[in-house]
């Protein structure tokens, strides 16, 4: 027996058990990385919800007297070549990317979990075939597949982008879930369930799933970061974007040429927004990875 860590806790009363659960949660709450990430993310979520009320101007409001002016009292983030207020556009673009990222990741996670459960538990030929397909899809860069799909679908809508990204994420999430399920299904409590005539559905959802939830949750947060990454890049490249929407990526795409003329603000602020949103999500997933020791 390994004696370098305290052995299993002996008999405990109800009260003491509650203390153990609180300890886990407090570990999360005390983790500096988590707190910083959660703070920044909360800020962005608030902006996403209340952006319409906070932004001083509309997304398409143009003021031709103030074209490409640098940050000043009237326009905190300056204006771009169309006379539009950068600050407002950044704020208003929040909801779009936040909602898209969450939805796409959620879609991918649900599909990936289903895939992982099925292949991890049933194995056999079904598993082999699916894994071959997954490998094939993994051999195509995520970005390229997304571009291809959006181009093929004449993508101009964010919904499409969300669906495409969700599907593209499914194989990788499926792989992670599959690995976890493979491990769990070897454990004897699954055999014990069969030995009391439990049906497959019960075993998958009531026995195995609760035990693979922690890695799934962590995977969700990791993928969320990549979703933000992908959505920003896709909108920068012009795919899946509605004309004129205050999309951070397309804001940069429209304005980045001007950095050579030292007009950095219409590019820098959306860029910083993307960076901080992505990093905040990443900090959260990092801290969770640490706590769950994955």
């Amino acid at each position, binding site marked *: 027996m390994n004696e370098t860590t305290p052995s299993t806790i002996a008999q405990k009363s109800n009260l003491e058990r509650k203390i153990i659960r609180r300890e886990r949660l407090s570990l999360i709450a005390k983790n500096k*990385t988590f707190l910083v990430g959660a703070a920044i993310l909360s800020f962005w979520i608030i902006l996403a919800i209340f952006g319409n009320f906070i932004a001083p101007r509309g997304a398409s409001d143009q003021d031709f007297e103030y074209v490409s002016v640098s940050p000043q009292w009237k326009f905190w983030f300056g204006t771009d070549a169309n006379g539009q207020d950068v600050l407002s556009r950044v704020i208003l673009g929040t909801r779009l990317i936040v909602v898209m990222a969450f939805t796409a990741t959620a879609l991918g996670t649900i599909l990936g979990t289903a895939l992982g459960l099925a292949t991890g538990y049933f194995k056999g030929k079904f598993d082999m075939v699916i894994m*071959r*397909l997954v*490998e*094939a*899809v*993994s*051999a*195509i*860069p*995520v*970005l*390229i*597949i997304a*571009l*291809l*799909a*959006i*181009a*093929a*679908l*004449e993508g101009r809508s964010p919904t499409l982008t969300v669906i495409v990204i969700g599907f593209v994420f499914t194989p990788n999430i499926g792989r992670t879930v599959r690995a976890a399920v493979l491990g769990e299904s070897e454990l004897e409590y699954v055999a014990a369930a069969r030995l009391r005539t439990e049906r497959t559905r019960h075993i998958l959802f009531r026995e195995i799933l609760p035990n693979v939830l922690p890695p799934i949750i962590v995977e969700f947060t990791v993928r969320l*970061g*990549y979703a*933000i*990454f992908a959505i*920003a*890049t896709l909108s*920068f*490249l*012009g*795919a899946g974007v509605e004309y004129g929407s205050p999309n951070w990526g397309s804001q*940069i795409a429209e304005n*980045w040429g001007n*950095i*050579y003329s*030292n007009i*950095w603000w219409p*590019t*820098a602020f959306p*860029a910083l927004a*993307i*960076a901080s949103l*992505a*990093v905040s*999500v*990443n*900090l959260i997933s*990092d801290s969770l990875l640490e706590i769950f020791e994955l």
Partner: protein
Amino acid sequence: MKRFILQRLGLSVITVFLVCVIVFFLTRILPGDVARQYLGRGATEEDLIEFRRVFGLDQSLFSQLFTWIGHLLQGDMGESMQYRGPVSDLLLPAIGYSSKLAGVAFFIIVPFSIAGGVVAAMNRGKRVDRFITVGGLSAAVIPEFVWAIILVLLFGVTFQVFPVSAFPEEGARSLLNQIWHLVLPSISLLLVLFGYVARITRAGVIEALDSDYMRTAVLKGLTRRKAVVKHVLRNALLPTIAVIASQIPYLIGGLIAVEIVFNYPGFGTILKGAVDARDYSVLQAGVIISSLVIVSFQLIADILFALLNPRIRQKISE
């Protein structure tokens, strides 16, 4: 051993074939008439028929697939829809350029990331470790184009250290100068790919450091440094090979945005142009080529892994 390689090769071929099928159907099966999409609203019926004939779109899906694959195997990538010239003329030079960029990037990324992972693992828990781990992964979620633009702003415009275009002008295209121009773009890619590779390397080193055989080495009387060099590194670096191969897709994907920002006539730029113009021939060919590259790297990584891991090597030679 030969049989193993052939087996893996066979699997790779299957994978590439599946990719072809997926890509093909993605562009054909999804709603929308290719010809109409391409030629736009103003197209006449004759134009549409002509277009379809030229690009074989009037045949059944399966025969299209097989004709296309047949051509591919002969090296014929078809005709570009926008330029009406061979796709290969468009893609091949671009691939050459991108290879240079990817090459430079690869030779910067691999040593840096591995070194980062090792340093983090050896200083577990200290500030250096947290900086590399958390910093690395945070940098990885920031899109390449954002990094590219920040780097251009900082080192190209504000402090003019590096050139802002990746493509040197006429007359200054010595090898050294080309590489110099590729430094900033490579760093954009490095920042995104560093984090994950360093993290996996770190995990591998830590696992080796915590292992029983490391304990044996120390208890034998080896100094810690000798023990690490002799026992830890060769075990720890095995998973690193696998993870580097897994990052090649992201490297290729990242090329697109980086090449655009740095004005580089590479594969990514061509692909972006093809997306904008709905040039399916170019798109298909492009995706297949990138998949070929990725699958080849995975094959090499698998073989390398098997060679270096005695357990697998022995199993194969039985």
